[in-house]
């Protein structure tokens, strides 16, 4: 099932910020109240919103703007169903929270009034749906697994532990003496009655149509980027003969590369020891599977193929535009169009892109960074008090983006592109040798790329270098931009992403009536 991730950001009336915080705390208390009538904490939300994986509620205070109330949620299926379930479960509480917020100035204003007016009985779900934002970049650790399946497979895992446990400490565990294929058969027979769904095939996690859609979106994004980069070159290509074009852009490119070379060094005392910033090309290797984009040959062929397709498609579009404007027919316009597109592409890759990097580097050298952001010890304590209680933590950070057209374009397009690429390349096979971008979560290069446009961020170099590599400074800056997560719900608080994948692999194996010795040996490793 398709998962949805969304955020709702609402401006809060400054006078109501304490009340809003108290309302969120009260929902948390109600959910954690052992006398709530549910067997476990957050039982009401678990039962009332069965599509929900995670949800957070935070109020971000700032000296620069009025407080912002942020709800982030990750759930199965479309937003309408989720908000309907939220309304049925927490409707009165959500309405009270909305009454602490400001009326939006856009066309959602009348809806806000309808929802928040005294004695209003208008449903709150449409307002939250209208104010929901889809993040430009997000990553699902266990894509394609709906909540019910994650919980079912978690229970199955616990049952396997029980079945595999040594029944008598004095006697050897019978499973230890069995070959893997026999363990599979025995376990399956033992668990089948308690887990009848093992007889049914698992639903496809990511359908072929979804995968194709992911890659088409990436291709569309890259296509638009290439068109954008090609525009300066295409304009000049219209009026310049191609030899002159090549000479002009060649000279310009050389000058840009010289500029980049001169500006390559980090600011004095700000260089980070890791040259790559966590982004290495080590993942590219001839040892990788030839079908993987992590194989240099496959990657090269893929890039060339994409550029070829771009050239043809862009030329066809340009030709049709030419036909519409000039009235000439295809045979007259095809080659001139192709020439413009090809020269544009050449200039885009070798001139425009480096020129943008040069501009960015020029800005980076002049950016100010906040070396010692003020940290509120009380807030830090409050954040620390709520962290590391379960296997997952929620972290919310709100930062202002550095001004300027380039920064905004890079920020928007960068996040969008990154999100699309992460989605397309992340597969359910966690160990696949693929171009994987988990560095967003794990490596400083990714953190720099994602956050480097924030005001006060430690000095960056070429968008991904330095920055977050300044560990202490980065952490202080990140803490400064964070706030207390007042409410955090996880439908499976004891599981990590890897553990969920492990459950899924065990369940997939147990769904099959038989395994080959090789498959069984591979499967049994997860036990």
């Amino acid at each position, binding site marked *: 099932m398709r998962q949805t991730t969304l955020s709702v950001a609402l401006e809060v009336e400054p006078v109501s910020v304490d009340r809003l915080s108290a309302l969120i705390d009260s929902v948390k208390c109600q959910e954690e109240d052992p006398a709530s009538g549910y067997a476990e904490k957050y039982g009401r939300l678990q039962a009332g919103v069965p599509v929900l994986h995670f949800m957070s509620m935070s109020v971000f205070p700032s000296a620069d703007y009025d407080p912002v109330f942020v709800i982030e949620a990750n759930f199965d299926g*479309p937003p309408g169903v989720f908000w309907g379930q939220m309304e049925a479960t927490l409707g009165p509480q959500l309405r009270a929270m909305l009454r602490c917020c400001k009326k939006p100035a856009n066309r959602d204003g*009348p809806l806000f009034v309808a929802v928040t007016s005294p004695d209003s009985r208008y449903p709150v*779900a449409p307002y939250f749906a209208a104010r929901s934002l889809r993040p430009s970049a997000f990553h699902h650790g266990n894509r394609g697994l709906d909540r019910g399946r994650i919980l079912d497979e978690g229970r199955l895992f616990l049952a396997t532990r029980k079945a595999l446990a040594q029944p008598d400490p004095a006697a050897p565990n019978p499973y230890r003496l069995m070959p893997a294929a026999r363990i599979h058969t025995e376990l399956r027979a033992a668990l089948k009655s308690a887990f009848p769904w093992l007889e049914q095939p698992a639903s496809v996690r990511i359908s072929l149509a979804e995968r194709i859609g992911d890659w088409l979106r990436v291709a569309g994004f890259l296509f638009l980027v290439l068109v954008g980069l090609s525009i300066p070159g295409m304009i000049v290509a219209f009026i310049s003969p191609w030899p002159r074009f090549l000479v002009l852009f060649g000279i310009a490119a050389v000058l840009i590369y010289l500029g980049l070379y001169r500006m390559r060094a980090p600011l004095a005392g700000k260089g980070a020891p890791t040259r790559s910033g966590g982004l290495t090309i080590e993942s590219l290797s001839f040892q990788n599977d030839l079908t993987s984009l992590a194989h240099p040959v496959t990657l090269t062929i893929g890039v060339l193929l994409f550029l070829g397709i771009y050239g043809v498609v862009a030329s066809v579009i340009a030709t049709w535009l030419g036909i519409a404007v000039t009235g000439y027919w295809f045979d007259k316009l095809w080659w001139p169009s192709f020439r413009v597109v090809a020269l544009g592409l050449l200039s885009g890759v070798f001139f425009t892109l480096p020129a943008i990097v040069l501009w960015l580097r020029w800005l980076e050298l002049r950016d100010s960074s906040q070396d010692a952001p003020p940290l509120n010890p009380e807030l830090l304590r409050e954040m620390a008090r709520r962290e590391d209680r379960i296997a997952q933590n929620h972290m919310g950070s709100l930062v202002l983006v550095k001004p300027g057209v380039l920064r905004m374009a890079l920020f928007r397009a960068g996040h969008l592109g990154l999100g699309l690429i992460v989605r397309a390349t992340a597969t359910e096979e966690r160990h696949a040798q693929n171009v994987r971008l988990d560095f967003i979560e794990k490596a400083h290069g990714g953190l720099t790329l994602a956050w480097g446009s924030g005001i006060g961020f430690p000095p960056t170099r070429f968008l991904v270098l330095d920055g977050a590599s300044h560990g202490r400074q980065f952490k202080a800056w990140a803490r400064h931009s964070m706030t207390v997560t007042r409410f955090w719900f996880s439908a499976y608080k004891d599981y990590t992403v890897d553990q969920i994948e492990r459950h899924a692999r065990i369940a997939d194996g147990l769904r099959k009536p038989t395994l080959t010795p090789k498959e069984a040996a591979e499967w049994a490793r997860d036990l």
Partner: protein
Amino acid sequence: MSATAGRDVLRPPANGFKAWLTACLMAYVPLGFRVLRTIRPILRFGNTIVVTRYDDVREVFLNDAAFRVPYKDKLDIIMGGHPFFLSMDETPEYRRDTAAMRLVVRPADITERLAGEVERRAEHIVANAKGHLEIVDSLVRRVTFEVLGAYFGIPDPPGEDLRVWATRLFEFQFADPGSDPALRREVDTIAPALRAHINGLIEKRRASGSFSDDVLGRCLAMHAQGVPGFSDDQIRSALMGFIVGGPPQPPMVVPQALEQLLRRPEALAGAQRAARADSNELLACYIFEAMRFDPLAPALPRTATRDSTIAAGTRRAAAVPRGATVYVAFSSAMMDQRRLPDPHLFNPRRLPHEYIHFGYGLHTCFGIHMNQALLPLMLKPLLKRPGLRRAPGRSGYLSKRGAFADRLHVEYE
């Protein structure tokens, strides 16, 4: 002389082109609502408005002050001008009368008295039918009137059939938008006769000095204690309201639910497993999910008491003038994919808020808890039987007469 034209519970079916056209149109109502939900969720023609989306249906139901129930005029005819809370706004009288009735129609009665009785009588009927049973009249209507008649303390009037009277009055009140003169003539006879019947029961009980532990007996005991809301007129109106508004409904919706289960062999098998496992809760999930595909009615009417707006602040916002009739299509709301996951899928594990069988707000069905518990039990003994299937021929498919379920024959081993 009989108060009704015939002894058949339902009036003779309408004939002619108009009846045929109405039947055809009714068959396409779900499709029509589906189209409306997408292209025109709030449809207005003249002074009539139809709301089809879940949010809007809920909004209208919850906003009793702006959208009042339009039952007063006909209810006055039935009750002889005495008020009954079904037609009231949220007033002190409404609160007093509903609170009074909650003293005598007690939640504990469902488990202690009614549930077992419904199941026992249904089992008796199913066991004696020798493998071939008509569901609407022989099972559901019979069980409903026998159990609830005894519970309310209202037996058949001498020489008459309470099922016929109650169903006629129900039709007049809720399912007669064209105000059929023939039906009105029957109502003009039945309504005073039923009032006289209940008055007679009150006097008889009081004269005997024995109140008995049924709703009428409890009302008389409350009257004797001087509890407000229990004058003779109030007792009579409440009992008439219960008899007219309550028992005629199960014979409509329960056979419709069984028809939906018979159309879905997997769902039927699931319901049968639940019945055999004595899992009343799960059985109820199957029955109410089945009812979602063919609920009591496509829509319920409301009357706008003032100029207002439905879905204010949205693109589909619609102004409603004072006096307009608003049809609240709760059947459509229960199929709205904007709020229900996969609404066209039979899913017995749905959440409570996904069902609007009993309305919302002030005029939520007074007997909601009774219905939730008892309706599934009427089918439970039948569902336990192996080999449950449609009877051969057309009689094995549910037929309707106007808004009412007419006949459905099934066989079992």
